[in-house]
């Protein structure tokens, strides 16, 4: 018997994995992927909660979230390209000329 809790816990764990990825990985692309993981984790919560409440709102919100994710991905990747164009590297640690 799978309850909402299962999904909540699952999404929570996935979310944590995503956050961990954001600053454990040393590759901008992977970092972006981690953000995607976080968003998807949230999606599970939405859908599960929507089902729990017996409404489609959850799915629709998921739909919007995907759009946002797409938009972010687009801009993010564009920025990655721009950065790469300047520094020929994808390591987040390479970009520390702005500090203090």
């Amino acid at each position, binding site marked *: 018997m799978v309850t909402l809790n299962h999904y*909540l816990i699952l999404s929570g764990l996935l979310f944590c994995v995503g956050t961990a990825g954001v600053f454990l990985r040393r590759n*901008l692309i992977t970092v972006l992927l981690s953000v995607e993981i976080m968003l998807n984790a949230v999606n599970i919560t*939405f859908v599960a909660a929507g089902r729990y409440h017996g409404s489609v709102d959850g799915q629709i919100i998921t739909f919007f979230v995907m759009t946002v994710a797409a938009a972010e991905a687009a801009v993010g990747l564009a920025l990655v390209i721009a*950065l790469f164009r300047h520094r020929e590297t994808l390591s987040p640690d390479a970009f520390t000329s702005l500090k203090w």
Partner: protein
Amino acid sequence: MNAFAATIPILIVVLSAIAAMLAEAIRHPGERMYIAGFGLIGLTGALVASCFLWDADATSFGVVRADNFSLFVNIVLCIIGILTMVFSHDVIEREEIPAGEYYALTLFAISGMMLMAAATDLLVIFLALEVLSLAVYVLTGLRRGSGLGAEAAFKYFLLGAFSSAFFLYGIAIAFTISGSTRLDQVGTAMASAPSPTLAWLAVGLLAVGFCFKVSAVPFHMWTPDAYEGAPTIVTAFMSTGVKAAAFGAFARVFLSTLEPMQGQWVPVLSAVAAATMIVGAVVGVLQNNIKRMLAYSSIAHAGYLLLGIIAANNAGKAAVLFYLLAYAVANLGALGIVALLGTAEHPHDQLRDFAGLWRTRPALAGLMTVFLLSLGGFPPTAGFIGKWYIFAAAVQNGHYWLAIIGVLSSVVSVFFYLRIVVMMYMTEDASAPARPRVSAPSMAALGFATLAVFYLGVLPARVIDYALQSIQTIF
């Protein structure tokens, strides 16, 4: 018509943005075109529309509400936008910024800001947030030539995405509890959540999202880098606009929807506010890049604004609005001057660039001084009334210690504002950078900002009345 009424200002701005894009599209290479004009028209229209909508309390699609509160924020945003537009026309050519995209994105950002302040649905707030954020990310990195711009933009983007994920998770939990994203339903549901823990999580995560946008400690790390890396004019725009919008939504969500849970979030925000005021003021002391310095100052100001939200009384709510306006004019003026003096090769954003400014540009130096004094909170300027109002609100609810931290940190911040004044007035011009001349419209805009600063500082009663009216409708 009425169904759309609430969205009219937003629509106008969006249309002007699209117009700007089209203009860029049809423009021949090298042809000069006053694209800012579209923005000015649109923003003026939005301003007028907002004034017309005053007291109408229109609602559209059940998710956008043009109550006086959001209208007040709209007006602030329109003023910010108009000033930005005027300055931009001088600046962007020098800064080698693609004009059409710049104006379009700025206007889109403004529309997103307006929407964020007016939305009554967490989902829409999230979307609006994303609209303005993405636009601002891009604006930050708009100078393709500069690696700093790209770096700043990416930092801002990544942390923004990161925090918005938290924000979204907050929304999700709220949705889990209430089965809806409408603020009213969320509020009632969370207040009566069977087990408060989940509600608390939601509150915490939402707070994180907002605190990031208003750059409160410890979610502020992006601010100095983004402000420094971005083109100065963009810095001016986002330091004021994003704050206004974010605080609008912040106030709406926390002071109306989550008001019943005050006991839960006031302590957290108090800690955040204290840290923000202290860090902002203290770290600003040693900055030598004016944009970075003003970034820290804007962090400190975020702290003061948080006081208004923490106070959570009418005075506090109105104070937030008034302070947003006061801060907007002063900060935009100051950064505007920095922008107007900068060029692509010489950004003119180092402290020493201002040495002996009053010899070569007495007028600009004077205006700069006025803006800085206002940011520092000296009478008889807007900044003083704003600070006083905020602290009055805090004290009324017995937050004496926050108020004291606030005033002391403001004293510290005065120190670095004065550093600029010292440079301008009391240091001899070392290496005079060739400073571009400022066009008449920009001077007019600066003059308007100065007038606003003094008007708000000497005769604030009228504006305070409006602020008070605009909070009566929602809270």
